[in-house]
């Protein structure tokens, strides 16, 4: 048992999987350079000690490197490809959306694509091109599993599950949750560290978790928003509102059962997601829950999300962009007050 940050837990997952399975390798920009940082957020730091040739530093060529990872995955290796900021997934979008997500299907199921993609998300004072939450965008692309760890425990377990999965898995990681240290630390970071068991474990892709039990309203959120939801639940408790917090952990596949069970109990739902409200994760969750459970709901589902704007730089405006505890509490109250 050891206390680890998400960055450390991810690194451990990679290290253990690289040792366990020779087919596993990491590929990305600045991930294994001697004297470097181990990627933008230190996750791959030192992994070249496991196997120098399995930590592959690429030129700045996102579409290329995801295509290279795809080619290697098709041939039976198990690459873990990353971008320094999720926003650069758009540079790789052709490979990710047109090839990685589809080639198994196009082959009639004859090909496997055991490929993990890692992408940091979240607004963190860097302006519009290093800030986006891309979960909703990739939700529109069938053929990729999507996971979103909010804790170090889940980060390690989900990454291991992803590496062992025979399908493409995209992991979104939140910059404010990494717990990166030293020169790579983030201001405004939230502690997401966990006690990590010494023994090997995985967190199943597609399984959510109840983070806090409650009776009056269900709040669902991933990544940073899960932590804000917990803070909101604390505050609501002081007002006598008992909020249940659900962390789906995976977006594809989604643990509808867990969420439905919660909503059957609370009859109220708040969906929190960083990123534009329109077309957001919250829309999918709200639509599906409404469709399946209209009779259980006693109030309209509330979506707490960002406005439909690019991410502004100035902290004043960025804080306005990012959903916060106040707004989550307000939405929860609204489901109850209505």
């Amino acid at each position, binding site marked *: 048992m050891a206390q680890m940050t998400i960055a450390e837990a991810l690194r451990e997952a990679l290290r253990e999987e690289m040792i366990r399975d020779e087919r596993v390798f990491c590929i990305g920009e600045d991930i294994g350079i001697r004297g470097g940082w181990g990627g933008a957020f230190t996750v791959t730091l030192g992994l070249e000690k496991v196997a120098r040739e399995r930590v592959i530093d690429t030129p700045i060529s996102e579409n290329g490197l995801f295509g290279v990872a795809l080619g290697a995955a098709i041939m039976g290796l198990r690459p873990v490809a990353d971008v320094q900021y999720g926003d650069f997934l758009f540079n790789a979008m052709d*490979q990710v959306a047109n090839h990685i997500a589809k080639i198994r299907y196009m082959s009639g199921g004859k090909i496997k694509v055991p490929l993990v993609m890692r992408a940091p998300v979240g607004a963190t004072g860097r302006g519009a091109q290093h800030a986006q939450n891309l979960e909703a965008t990739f939700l529109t692309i069938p053929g990729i599993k999507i996971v979103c760890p909010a804790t170090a425990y889940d980060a390690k377990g989900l990454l291991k599950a992803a590496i062992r999965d025979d399908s493409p898995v995209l992991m979104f990681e939140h910059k404010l949750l990494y717990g990166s240290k030293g020169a790579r630390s983030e201001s405004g970071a939230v502690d997401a560290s966990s006690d990590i068991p010494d023994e090997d474990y995985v967190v199943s892709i597609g399984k959510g978790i109840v983070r806090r039990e409650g009776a009056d309203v269900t709040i669902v959120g991933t990544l940073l928003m899960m932590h804000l939801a917990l803070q909101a639940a604390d505050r609501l408790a002081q007002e006598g509102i008992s909020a249940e917090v659900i962390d789906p952990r995976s977006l594809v596949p989604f643990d509808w059962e867990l969420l439905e069970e919660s909503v059957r109990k609370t009859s109220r739902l708040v969906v929190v997601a960083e990123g534009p409200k329109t077309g957001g994760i919250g829309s999918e969750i709200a639509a599906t829950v409404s469709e399946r459970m209209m009779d259980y709901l006693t109030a309209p589902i509330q979506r707490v999300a960002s406005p439909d704007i690019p991410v502004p730089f100035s902290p004043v405006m960025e804080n306005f962009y990012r959903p916060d505890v106040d707004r989550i509490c307000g939405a929860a109250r609204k489901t109850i007050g209505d």
Partner: protein
Amino acid sequence: MTYSSKFSLALYRKMVLIRQFEERVKYLFLEGVMPGTIHQSQGQEAVPVGVCAALKEGDVITGTHRPHGQAIARGLTVESMMHELFGKADGCCRGKGGSMHMGDLERGMLPAIAIVGGGVPIATGIALAFRLRKEPRVAVCFTGDGGVNEGAFHEGVNMGAIWSLPVVYVIENNLYAASTPVSQAVKLKKLSDRAGGYGIPGVTIDGNDVLAVYETAHEAVTRARDGGGPTLIDAVTYRITGHSRRDPCNYQPEEERKEALQREPIRRFAERLLAEGLATQAQLDEIHLAVDAEIEDAVESAKAAPDPKPEDALDDVFA
């Protein structure tokens, strides 16, 4: 170099098989029996046939949106391809791929990549897998002349170059990207001049001379297999059919087309074989007959084969 009659006739047969396959498919398509759209490669046969003749079992090619010739050259059966074109459940991609995604990894060809340039990084990655596993295998990436202007080409070739991977990039240069002449898309006399920008060898060859293609490919494939890194081969050929569907090719100057027909690879090779005494006219005729029969069988069998079930669409998304 001189080659055995057997080897030469095998090349010849492959080229004829491609030509006749394409002609038959075109006819089926115009008849309206065949769904979808098609990109065909009449006139370009010498490129994939010459290149694939230089490959060994275990080598892998990536194809383009114009993949029929590449697939046949690599060794897919016309039967499995014809079934795929008809969208049948036992096509080489079980009806999920279609013309533009023809391929069968077990036969050494990835389902073709119909996004222009998209196959370049993927082929590079296949080569990376060979390198990491220390397997003496080679990846060959086919692209068109238009494909060299995609960012994916740039990124993929550069990575192949810096890591000296066992991969060969072959431009099936038919002088047009859809309707766009190569001279309008690139400010170079020879597309192989792109190679210098990546620090790898590049060569422009007559892509209608199947033996020249074979020899160049053989050298490049051998270099790749021996750790010498990638080569960019610019094989100049011509598309003597439409870009797709019912394209009348009005953008190809008449004069140019006439000349191209003179240089078309199959007749040229036949003449050479006859001249060098490597084949008799009877042997060539026999090949044509056998090929036609093989294709006809494939058509009949494809027409009779069962369609997939609608719900089969739901399978094969995740492993």
